[in-house]
């Protein structure tokens, strides 16, 4: 496999894991715009153990997950006291605090970053993303998944049904933290280097976009969102020169044309994002859509069972 494709698969896997990390709190009705902060905790946790103590990835990854889960659990209590846009700002502020702390820490390399000696091939993040995906699909099929989605729809009634809504939200936030830690550790070991500039606000925004535009109602949503937004810039990399050629032809330009500027990819990405918000505000994949596809199977089965002999 070429370096290009293994690089893409690595990034895609890490993005899928991150999307699920943010999906869990969002599925309970809590928007989290601090993804980069949680990922940075995991990445630096793993990088530090690997560079300073020479630990293997089988030790650094569980540690990074546990550390990020612990941090998430502890800040969940003050954070989840806020609601709506205030929670979004609070999680964003948390990511900024993490970034600032790491930037000013000599132990963690400050602005110089940390190099990570233990390296993993792309198969490891791919396997990680696969396991996380199966785990999330399982979780959403349990009663825990049911009460998570119920708390998202109406927390007052969910409470009345006997559910500890706060407990469910803290748990979802903590499990999400562990997944963000996993994504961070895989990032550190895949790219052999971490620097805090890589964990900036636009990462937090992108990861939240994967979830919101992919769809928050089912486990399919974040998967679709991460796939779409990771692969689209790559697809545009190929499609853009051709697109410019056609446009030139249509407008009657003659002669050779220069390759278009890279930044046009992000213009198109931005336009698509706006269009999706306008026309599919509940996300690419909605509950009704999944139910329809499932129903088609189910209806055929029922028809067979109910048919008179």
């Amino acid at each position: 496999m070429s370096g290009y494709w293994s690089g893409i698969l690595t990034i895609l896997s890490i993005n899928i894991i991150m999307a699920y990390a943010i999906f869990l709190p969002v599925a309970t009705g809590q928007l989290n715009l601090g993804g980069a902060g949680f990922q940075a905790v995991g990445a630096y946790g793993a990088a530090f153990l690997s560079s300073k103590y020479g630990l293997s990835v089988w030790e650094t990854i569980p540690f990074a997950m546990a550390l990020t889960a612990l941090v998430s659990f502890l800040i969940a209590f003050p954070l989840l006291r806020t609601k709506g846009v205030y929670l979004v700002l609070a999680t964003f502020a948390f990511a900024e605090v993490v970034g600032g702390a790491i930037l000013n820490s000599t132990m963690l390399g400050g602005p110089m970053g940390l190099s990570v000696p233990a390296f993993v091939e792309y198969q490891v993040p791919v396997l990680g993303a696969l396991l996380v995906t199966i785990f999330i699909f399982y979780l959403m099929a349990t009663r825990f998944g049911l009460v998570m989605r119920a708390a998202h729809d109406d927390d007052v009634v969910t409470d009345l049904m006997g559910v500890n809504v706060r407990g469910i939200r803290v748990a979802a936030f903590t499990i999400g933290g562990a997944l963000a830690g996993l994504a961070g550790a895989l990032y550190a070991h895949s790219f052999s280097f971490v620097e805090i500039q890589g964990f900036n606000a636009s990462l937090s925004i992108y990861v939240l976009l994967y979830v919101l535009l992919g769809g928050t109602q089912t486990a399919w949503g974040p998967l679709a969102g991460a796939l779409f937004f990771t692969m689209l810039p790559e697809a545009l990399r190929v499609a853009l020169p051709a697109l410019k050629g056609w446009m030139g032809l249509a407008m009657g330009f003659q002669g050779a044309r220069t390759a278009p500027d890279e930044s046009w990819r992000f213009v198109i990405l931005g336009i698509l994002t706006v269009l999706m918000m306008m026309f599919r505000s509940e996300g690419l994949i909605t509950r009704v859509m999944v139910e329809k596809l499932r129903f088609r199977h189910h209806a055929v089965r029922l028809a067979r069972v109910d048919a008179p002999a």
Partner: protein
Amino acid sequence: MTAPTPLLSLHNISKRFGGLAVISDVSFDVSAGARMALIGPNGAGKTTIFNLVSGFYQPDEGDIMMEGRAIQTIASRHRIGLGIARSFQNIRLMPHLSVTENIMLGQQARAGGVVELLKPLSFFGHSHWRDEAQALLKDMGLHTYPGEVVANLPYGIRKKIEVVRALVARPKLLLLDEPAAGLNAAETDSLTGFLKRISDTGVTLLVVEHDMGLVRRLCDHVVVLNFGRKIYDGPTANVQNDPLVLEAYLGPRDAASPAKTAEGCHAA
């Protein structure tokens, strides 16, 4: 001789919001197995009584007793475990969940514990929780919509589903807040039969309702509130002749009242 302990009993309940006294010194009993209505003009405090019993508010004064035990300090989420379930004036089903999932949420009070939380409801086949929910929907004649997302269903069906959801917790006392609001005559008839069947299984009903037809057909006992005070507490048959109730609904007697009661005619 002592009378049997009422299932629910309110003792001198008062509730104020700021300077506004919403409930003033209200007491009444709901005996086990009763079908009781709580009526009164808009703003009389009926829904506030429900919110006090289900634990959204705490009373400023007085005790709320469930089977002889004071419950006003118990958190709202533990009250379903005491046997209190309710429906809402404006339907509050989970719009993004399917019908079956809404019913399974109602089972939550019986499915406590982390182990039950982490068992799958549908992942390689069905759990007994899902089977139970679907069997119940079938019993109630609602089985045609198991996987349908609630937001897509007609209003009357959603009303019934909300009642079924409250019922799967196997409550002793079911609080229904305007179950017939927004239903047409046929749907109200169907709902009345539905509620009678529920009552026949031993569930005590306390109903807030404006539709007096439903109250007369369903309930044997009525409590009337007006401006947060109890003005009537007795059999349904007599409520329409009670002077205080007539005044609350129709205004003072000397203002020309169209009520065709013996007392209402004396001015003629």
